[in-house]
């Protein structure tokens, strides 16, 4: 079996498993899984920039929030239909990523982290400042009546799961294809050694900007999807905590792997869910488990799998 065939089989198997789970999981867990899939889209977007290009951003919450607010305000204030509002959310995130990337990519390393963090803090303060429209910290809900698409009520558990799965599948397969494309392989070359990639004739600046826009766009898709499926838009999603989450998810699942982000979100979600059912000090438990994982599986779950067993893993 060729590498492409193995890769395609693996990706389709993951999607098939997610379809199968819909029929076997009880409502509580299928609801969780819908949320996990949406957050995994966010992590996949982050993985493009961090895992494949080697740029560690501490400001991705602004792109998630841009998608979320772009969508939510378009529906609540603009009265736009859902598909158009969704595209507006995506466009907001991509535009913000383009502007941020244009400025922040003049720096690198720690400076890049700080600049993206500052941009994200500014975005958070903007959300609070325009509280008349955004309702500040409190946020706002999108009415159930507005969350209908082609007669399908997205507030129902089943429709929400299917919509999350469709969006996840689209992003998952698209990104898996991009990673194997010439563009994706160039990003890996930049991650490995930027100067060398430049000396091989690659315009590394332009590639990094494209990666930033793509990453922001996918984060925006996740933000808009979250607002659409769960009906809430809030400033919490623009805080630094939501910039750290995708970093943790990707590190846990395996940076620079296609399945890692999903696995990372799944693991962390259920780690907190399970430990909080045992003790009120669940964050301590989660912290210890994360430290252990980082010590014994520094490349993340899928990264270690690739290193130890399946070298072909995409």
């Amino acid at each position, binding site marked *: 079996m060729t590498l492409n065939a193995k890769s395609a089989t693996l990706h389709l198997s993951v999607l098939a498993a997610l379809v199968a789970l819909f029929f076997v999981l009880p409502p509580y867990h299928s609801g969780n899984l819908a949320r996990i899939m949406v957050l995994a889209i966010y992590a996949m977007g982050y993985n493009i920039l961090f895992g494949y290009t080697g740029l560690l951003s501490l400001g991705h919450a602004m792109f998630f929030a841009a998608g979320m607010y772009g969508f939510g305000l378009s529906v609540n204030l603009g009265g736009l239909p859902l598909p158009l509002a969704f595209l507006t959310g995506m466009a907001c995130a991509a535009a913000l990523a383009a502007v941020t990337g244009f400025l922040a990519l003049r720096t690198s390393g720690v400076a890049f982290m700080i600049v993206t963090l500052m941009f994200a803090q500014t975005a958070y303060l903007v959300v609070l400042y325009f509280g008349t429209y955004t309702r500040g910290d409190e946020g706002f809900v999108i009415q159930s009546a507005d969350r209908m698409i082609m007669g399908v009520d997205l507030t129902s558990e089943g429709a929400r799961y299917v919509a999350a799965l469709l969006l996840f599948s689209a992003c998952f397969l698209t990104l898996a294809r991009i990673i194997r494309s*010439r563009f994706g*392989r*160039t990003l*890996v*070359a930049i991650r*490995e*050694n930027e*100067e*060398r*990639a*430049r*000396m*091989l*004739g*690659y*315009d*590394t600046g332009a590639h990094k900007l494209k990666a930033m826009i793509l990453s922001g766009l996918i984060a925006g898709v996740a933000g808009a999807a979250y607002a659409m499926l769960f009906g809430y838009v809030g400033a919490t999603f623009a805080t630094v905590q939501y910039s750290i989450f995708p970093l943790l998810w990707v590190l846990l699942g395996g940076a620079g792997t296609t399945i890692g982000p999903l696995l990372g979100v799944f693991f962390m979600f259920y780690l907190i869910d399970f430990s909080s059912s045992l003790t009120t000090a669940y964050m301590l438990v989660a912290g210890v488990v994360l430290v252990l994982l980082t010590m014994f599986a520094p490349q993340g779950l899928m990264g270690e799998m690739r290193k130890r067993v399946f070298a072909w893993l995409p």
Partner: protein
Amino acid sequence: MLEVKNIHAAYGDAITLHGVSFDVQPSEILCLLGRNGAGKTTTLKTVMGILPVTSGSVTLEGEEMSSLPPHEIPRRGIGYIPQGRRLFPELTVNQNIEIGLMTRGMGKDTKEWVLELFPRLRERLKQTAGTLSGGEQQMLATARALCLRPKVLLLDEPTEGLQPSMIALIRDVILKMKNEGFAIVLVEQKVDAVLQVADRVVFIENGRSVDRATAADLKRDPQMLTQYLGV
């Protein structure tokens, strides 16, 4: 082919090149010799646009290179193999070569050509580059640069850190490339190795090209080597 005329360059405010000139023609090996810190590597980096040229010119077949962005220079035909090889260590040999091929959309014929030049790489295609021996890494770095089908190759200390048998192998590879018609600019510390392969030598001292000679002349009369290198 490649003509470097009186180039000056600086790291920020620190001026490091004060006037370096040389030229190299197809099927010729020109070597830059000088003590540590003389400006040999800086010269290659300046030709590649990593350091901006503050005055002077770098032309390839009459086309000015110094005004181009760095990534355009390899595309126009100057390949650079830096000191320390600088491979993509986590990627396989095959992936390293593919990245070289992608830049200018080169196909299987180019890949076959470089694998014929370096048959040992064919046996290592699935191995990660970081696990190759020093000599094999040098071959891969050279093969990857050749994937762009350059006209001129700049080699910075290709035998650094290699055992004698590997040095002989790399020397053969350099001569093979010369016979293929490449113009080669070589920076090397090992004088013996230089005199075995070079056609001409340019001496660099304190960021200036101060003298030049043919390798044949240096073999006959090594006085310049004593004067500029203390050997």
